Structures are given as C-alpha cells and as structure tokens.
C-alpha cells in the first residue's frame, strides 16, 4: 500500500483520490456556472420529457378498469371550501394518508371536480 511520506499514514488508491478531486472541482464548477438561454431551454425540454415519462410510469401502476362513480353528494363542509383549501387538504391526504389519485398536479380540474374527489376519498367506502 502507498504511504504518505509527509504523514506516514496509508494513502487511498490514487485512482480513487484523483476521481474524488475531479468530482469536487467539477461539482463546484457546475454550481458556479451561469447557464445560457440555450442551456435553460434545453433543460426545460428535458425536464418536460422526463416528467412525461414519469407520468407514463405512474399510469402503468393504476388499475386498468376503475368503476366510474356518479351522483356523488358533496357534504356542506366540503361545498364551503375554496380551491386553495381543497388543494391543501388533498395534498395533505396524499402525503400523510397515502391516498392516490391520477391528477398529480390537480391542475385542469374544476373546483367541483376537486370537491367530488375529496368527498369520494373521505367516504369510508371510497378508500
């Protein structure tokens, strides 16, 4: 094993040391760099592509045949909630109660859709 002459302690593998030094320098250089407009545009496109693929992976996990429920009666306390409160409540349920729903961002859904979703989730038979 190579020894450090200055400290007389065993040194690590030179290849590993070199990789670590390169890594440290490259990571710092990346943090210091200022992206160009082209970099930002490219990153945005790649991010959108990666998210689309992620959505496809999520869809694969969903059951193919889900019974569509109609005629859900929305209770007054949910009816009274505004959009922000509905989204907050749904997000909390997703995080803490492991509730799953297909619309990850909850965008594109009307307030009525959100109230219906929350009602179905909170119904004992809907879980």
């Amino acid at each position, binding site marked *: 094993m190579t020894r450090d002459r200055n400290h007389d302690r065993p040194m690590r593998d*030179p290849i590993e040391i070199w990789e670590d030094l390169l890594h440290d320098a*490259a990571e710092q250089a990346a943090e210091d760099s200022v992206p160009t407009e082209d970099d930002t545009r490219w990153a945005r496109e790649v991010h959108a592509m990666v998210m689309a693929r992620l959505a496809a992976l999520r869809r694969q996990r969903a059951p193919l045949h889900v019974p569509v429920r109609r005629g859900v009666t929305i209770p007054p306390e949910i009816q009274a909630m505004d959009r922000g409160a509905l989204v907050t409540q749904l997000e909390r349920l997703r995080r803490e109660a492991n509730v799953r729903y297909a619309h990850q961002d909850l965008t594109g859904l009307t307030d009525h859709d959100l109230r219906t979703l929350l009602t179905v989730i909170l119904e004992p038979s809907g879980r």
Partner: protein
Amino acid sequence: MKRDDEESEEVQAPPHFAPSEEWLAEFRRQCTETLVLLTVQYANTLDAGIGSEQPQDKRYPRTVVLRALADTQLGILRWDHTTPLKAHIEKAIQKRSRIEWKRARKRARQRYRHLSIDDTTPSGRSLALDELDQMMFERLTERERASEAIAELRARAADDPELRAYIDARCRKGSRAEVLRQTGLSPERYRQVARRLGQLIKQLSIEVRPRRGSGEDTP
C-alpha cells in the same frame, strides 16, 4: 438517508420496470430543471479533461445526462430513491467518462500517425517530441498517472496551505465530510478551495487520461 457516494448500478433493463409510488414521488421531487443544468455542467467539466478549459459544445455532456436520466427511468441504472438523485446521475456520468477514456486509450496510436520524428522543421519536430512525450506518458498505468497528477497538484499547491491541506486530507479520507472535519474548513471556505482546485487542475501539464475525442464521440 443512505450515503450518497454509492455507485450507480447498471443492470439489465427489466422487461416491466415498475418503480414504487415512493420511487416515483422522489424522482419527481428531485429531478428539477436545476438538477439537469447542474449535471450537464458537471459532465462538461469532466469532459474537458485535464489542462484545458471547458468545451463550448455541450452536445456530448447533454447526451450523457439525457442517457443517465433515461436509463434510470427504464430501470437500467438502478437508483435507490432514499439517496440523492443528483449524486446518482453524477456517478453515472463518471462511469460513462471512465468507459470513454478507456476507449480513447486503446486508440492512442491512431492519434499520432500523422507525426514524424524525421520532421525537419523546428516546429514540426518540437510538436513530434511533445506528442512522443505524451505517448510515453500514456504507456503508464492509470494508477501511475493518477499518482503523477496528484504529485503535480501537490507541488503546484505548495504556496496555498489551505488547498494543500485539503489535497493531503483527500489522500487519506474517503468522504468529503471527513475531510472537512479534519481540515476544519467552513462550507464557504471549502467552496473557495474547490474553485482553486479546479483552476489548478486546468493548469496541470499532464493528461491523466487521454482525451475523449481520440475515441468515439458517441456515449
């Protein structure tokens, strides 16, 4: 959270890669546009090699990052979602770089076939001798080259005690946290040291590994 320096593991793509809900949520949370930008810059610095500035053309680093992300989503690169995604992508970039460098090394002879030691012009002869020096250096093993590079780095850092102490600590300690503990560097001081380290690496007179351009350009 597990340590972030574990190797990204490349495996056979599973026919039906079905990551867990937690995996998907973590990937979604961590894979930001910023992560994409940072890892491209990281790949660009590694691709620059030693003793040179970063290339302006980012096609190669972008391709490497895109491939690492796609391979992770396909399950070819196995990512443990309890570890940072950025470290996983960086490991994948390092691994790809190693493969490219090994390929380039095998093709070293092709790089110098245009040179002639019988060149009679002073510049031509000087160029041929320089390239022959480099060729001799390429005959060293990767471990010998790494040792040479570290030795030169330490010599160049002789007037910078903080950087020298950092390099020495890196030679003995495996993790950055241990090195910071030993050197007593604050996060801000560390960033400054890492910047000076990057500058010194650009000034090294030797190539620890051959340039990727001497091999195939596609990852």
